[in-house]
């Protein structure tokens, strides 16, 4: 695979872009990164992802792949060393199930807590916490969802702990409860500590906090106009 050009189009504060950085870094794949200015999408993004017009997009040898989880599976199948998915089909199905749970349930819950207000916000936050408790149950006493090493779920989803904490701080609603979720609360940090290559490409929490505070102000302002 040496010499084949790999390019990632992304946005620094997007957790979906971060997923792809993490997968590429864990496999030691060399790539170019192009930062997209999201309100002003580049012609390249519109050309590479005409269906959804979203980042991240991975371009490998001129061929674009969109949707972060599709990209992760592509990376796994193209660069077979340091596998992030288990070998056993049942374990693979389980890993894919839990990642889908995060995307379908946890992400909308956390984003809903961030963007809604009043009773709607309280209701969504409660659901978000319930769904995080379900993840806590699945993680149990393990350090990673991949058990002893970083796996598909860790790469695809550990970021939600950091994001949930940031959202919690901004809207003053606790989503990640250290008492109820003792394993989950350290999951994101455990992943960063276990793999310094991941820490290097992850934006610092305070920078993400400031960015999201600004984003939240914008949402509140536009909601009240």
């Amino acid at each position: 695979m040496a010499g084949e050009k790999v390019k990632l189009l992304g946005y620094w504060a997007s957790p979906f872009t971060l997923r792809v950085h993490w997968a590429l870094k864990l496999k030691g794949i060399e790539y170019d990164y192009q930062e997209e200015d999201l309100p002003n999408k580049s012609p390249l993004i519109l050309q590479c992802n005409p269906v959804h017009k979203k980042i991240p997009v991975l371009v490998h040898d001129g061929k674009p792949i969109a949707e972060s989880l599709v990209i992760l599976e592509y990376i796994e199948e193209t660069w077979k060393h340091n596998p992030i998915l288990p070998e056993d089909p049942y374990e693979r199905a389980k890993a894919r199930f839990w990642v889908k749970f995060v995307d379908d349930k946890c992400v909308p819950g956390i984003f809903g807590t961030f963007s809604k207000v009043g009773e709607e916000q309280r209701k969504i936050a409660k659901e978000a916490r319930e769904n995080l408790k379900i993840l806590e149950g699945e993680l149990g006493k393990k350090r990673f969802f991949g058990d002893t090493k970083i796996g598909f779920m860790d790469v695809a989803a550990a970021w939600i702990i950091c994001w949930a904490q940031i959202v919690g701080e901004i809207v003053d609603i606790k989503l990640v409860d250290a008492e109820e979720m003792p394993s989950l609360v350290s999951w994101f940090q455990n992943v960063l500590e276990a793999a310094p290559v991941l820490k290097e490409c992850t934006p610092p929490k305070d920078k993400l906090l400031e960015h999201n505070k600004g984003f939240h102000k914008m949402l509140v302002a536009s909601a009240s106009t």
Partner: protein
Amino acid sequence: MANDEVILLDFWPSMFGMRLRIALAEKEVKYEYKEEDLRNKSPLLLQMNPIHKKIPVLIHNGKPVCESNIAVEYIDEVWKDKAPLLPSDPYERAQARFWADYIDKKLYHSSRKTWSTKEEDPEAAKKDFIEILKALEGVLGDRPYFGGDNFGFVDIALIGFYSWFYAYETYGGFSTETECPKFVAWAKRCMQRDSVAKSLPDQHKVLEFAKAARQRLGIE
């Protein structure tokens, strides 16, 4: 694989359940079909899918696999010696997964608006649905299947919706044959496959089901 126990928890009009029926049939896997009453879910379903409590669930030697596209990939990986459902090339596989995801994110929600909700703007709901079908027609191009020459993952993800088309057309007020003839030609081609013909319910039966559901929802 001779002593495999395979059970499918399903609900006859579910286009998601149909995916598994077709995949198992393509692989010639013997399985026990268990019909679920979704208003009275069985203890087995609640035990096998405690998180979502939804069908379909594939139970293979006592172990549950939930989420239809995930289960189709599982079936492809376990029974790998026959009828590959995904292409072997990683880029082609990525395209297949992308379009299966598109079907779940876009087509399903749009389809519901044609019959199960009181839409403020039914014309917009119909237009949106047809646009999605046209986008899929574009992806198909001149090929016999979304899998190219071979019936595959995207065909399996999509064909179940065809059993609902009579219901969508009746309540949405359009004709797919007129709007998207290529799509209908593809669907009829798929219906010629035994695995599909045996897995899809009759469109009139689905229409009756939709009518009853609309009555319960108070929009009939």
